[in-house]
């Protein structure tokens, strides 16, 4: 086989699988727009109004935003200590965080619900945010520790000679240098939090005004079983934000997943 025909074959194989990967989504878009035959954006308007997707997206933005900010700060601090400092119990702490990477949401969601309920945190943003911070912190600490361990010791040495405190060293020296690693972490945490379904399904049991986007879609499906184009429009609305971020930051997404992120 010549190199040229081999290259054509390679692209053909990749092309076929690329088509398979996007096919259901193209179908979704076509259904939502009522293609072929017409282009009708009105389904989006109907879905938006009847499905309250504006509220759902706002809630998802709030929950995801707060979760990601909190998890990022906590993970950077913990990863910094575990990656650059030596203190008793550091190794045990690291293993403890590592163990959290494999805990499925399904395992903790039931006790979480009952315990959050008894302290009045069910149907609140806090009840939805804090468990997701905890899950993200398990991954984030693992991830940031790996980054801080890869920092050249000379950098830390130089900061110390300049008389910088550990706090200043972290935020003024290491965090700016580590932007790519941090961005990857943020991107992954954002995706996981945005797409999370089981936790809001259970925690947001009665307050319709706090539903996140995926939860909203599931109720939308309950009410509009028969209307595929409307349902598809709803699915597009909730998937779009992450897909858009992905298109721009696909390198970070893929790099993060490839490095063996054990979650999901």
């Amino acid at each position, binding site marked *: 086989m010549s190199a040229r025909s081999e290259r054509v074959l390679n692209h053909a194989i990749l092309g076929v699988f690329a088509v398979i990967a996007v096919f259901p989504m193209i179908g979704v878009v076509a259904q939502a727009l009522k293609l072929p035959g017409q282009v009708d954006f009105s389904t989006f308007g109907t879905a938006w109004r009847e499905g309250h997707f504006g509220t759902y997206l706002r809630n998802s933005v709030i929950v995801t935003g707060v979760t990601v900010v909190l998890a990022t700060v906590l993970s950077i601090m913990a990863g910094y200590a575990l990656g650059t400092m030596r203190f008793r119990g550091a190794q045990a702490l690291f293993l403890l965080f590592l163990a959290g990477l494999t805990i499925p949401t399904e395992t903790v969601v039931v006790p979480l619900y009952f315990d959050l309920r008894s302290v009045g945190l069910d149907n609140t943003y806090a009840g939805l945010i804090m468990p997701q911070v905890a899950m993200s912190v398990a991954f984030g600490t693992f991830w940031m520790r790996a980054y801080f361990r890869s920092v050249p010791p000379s950098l830390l040495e130089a900061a110390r000679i300049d008389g910088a405190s550990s706090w200043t060293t972290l935020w003024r020296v290491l965090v700016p240098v580590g932007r790519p690693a941090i961005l990857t972490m943020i991107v992954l945490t954002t995706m996981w939090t945005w797409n999370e379904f089981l936790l809001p399904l259970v925690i947001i*049991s009665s307050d319709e005004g706090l539903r996140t986007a995926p939860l909203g879609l599931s*109720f939308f499906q309950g009410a509009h079983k028969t209307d595929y184009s409307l349902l598809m429009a709803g699915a597009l609305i909730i998937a779009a934000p992450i897909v858009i971020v992905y298109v721009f930051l696909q390198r970070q997404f893929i790099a993060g997943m490839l490095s063996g992120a054990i979650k999901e």
Partner: protein
Amino acid sequence: MPTLRSRGAVAAAAALVTALAAACAPGSSDDKPESKAPAAVSTDVAKAGNVTLTVWDQEVQGGLKEQIEKLNAQFQAKYPNVKINRVSRSFTDLQKTLRLALSGGNPPDVVEANQGYASMAQYVKAGMLLPLDSYDQVYGWKKRFPKGLTDLNSVTDDGKLIGSGKLYGVSLNGEIVGLYYNKEKLAKLGIQPPKTWAEFDQALATAKGKGEVPIAFGNVEKLPAMQLYGVLQDGQTGKEAVRKLVFGSGGSWTDAPNVQAAQKLADWAKAGYFTKDANSIKWDDTPANFAKGQGVFMFGGTWWAPDLNDRMKDKVGFMLPPPAQAGAPTATMGGESLPWSITSKSKHADVAAAYINFITSPQAMDVAVEAGSLPVLPASKQPDAPLLKEVASAWTELSKNDGTTPYLDYATPTFTDAFGGPLQELVAGKTTPQQAMKKAQDDYSAFQKKK
């Protein structure tokens, strides 16, 4: 430093054990909500100050949605200090979420809690619903509704017996599971609406022979097959036997007539009388398909009538399932729609009671008729559309004969899965009637023992 390390491990283990022991066992003692004395009930909603009443209902379709929107608007116009926060979701979604919401810290004020051992009885046992007896003494609900209807919404404190104990809800709509038929198709096939089961069987065979879908059927949710089975069961055995069986006071699901009903279902499935791949068609898609002309007959609840009336106009008819002999009284599943109940944690119980009184009042029954739905009590108005007239007269006839039997999913908390699952297998030809009924009985007797 092995000693230190192991000491640390021991300390950690000890701490964990202490924590576990200190953590209270799940669950709390069940304290029953006390109902206040009738004298303490305030019926003056206007004096209640600004109140937001959160109401969960399942009135999402056609006329049912319209009637409740109208009633809510009227109530708010009458009492401008009350704002109704209406949360509506499909029956299936409401079933899935209500349990979680009721046990949460801040449940809605008014909910439509389904009757039966799977729902209302459990909520009552856990003290989540407010007994309405004192409100009944003020508003006179037991005088407004016949005893058969208030019994369905009554449960004993321990949740063990439906039909006695305190009153926990009142209903707005009547319900029958009956037989819809496509008039155009019947005319084309040259058949009359069946007067007996034998005639019906013949009609099905004729329809099948002419290449029609005899019965529109969608059964993803498992409940549709249970309703269809219930109709068949009512055709095979007496209404009293069904009532006793469902409410747990005698009989077995493996009794001969009950197995025969399953056999009939299996025979129909085998003869190809149902929509193809019924187990993969959603319940709510069934009337939509029927309206599009897929199906000569369709078993379904009167809750579909307003929607079908809009879609099919005078092409659709409704009747009670045929009796064994022509002219004999029929029994079928139905009764009243989901009752409106007040949660025990509601801070505005008086306002909530006034609300459910308002939406089940004689005037409300008229609003129901105007919206095209079936009121549970006779209204002063009559519907105009032919289909709705047929529904109303079927309801009158059934009430006159005392012919309603309870829905089968009332029987146990797990019945939809435990019996609905085997019925799906029966529809798919994967099991025998005997096996399906045995599975139902297994679940049923396990629940009776636990109760």
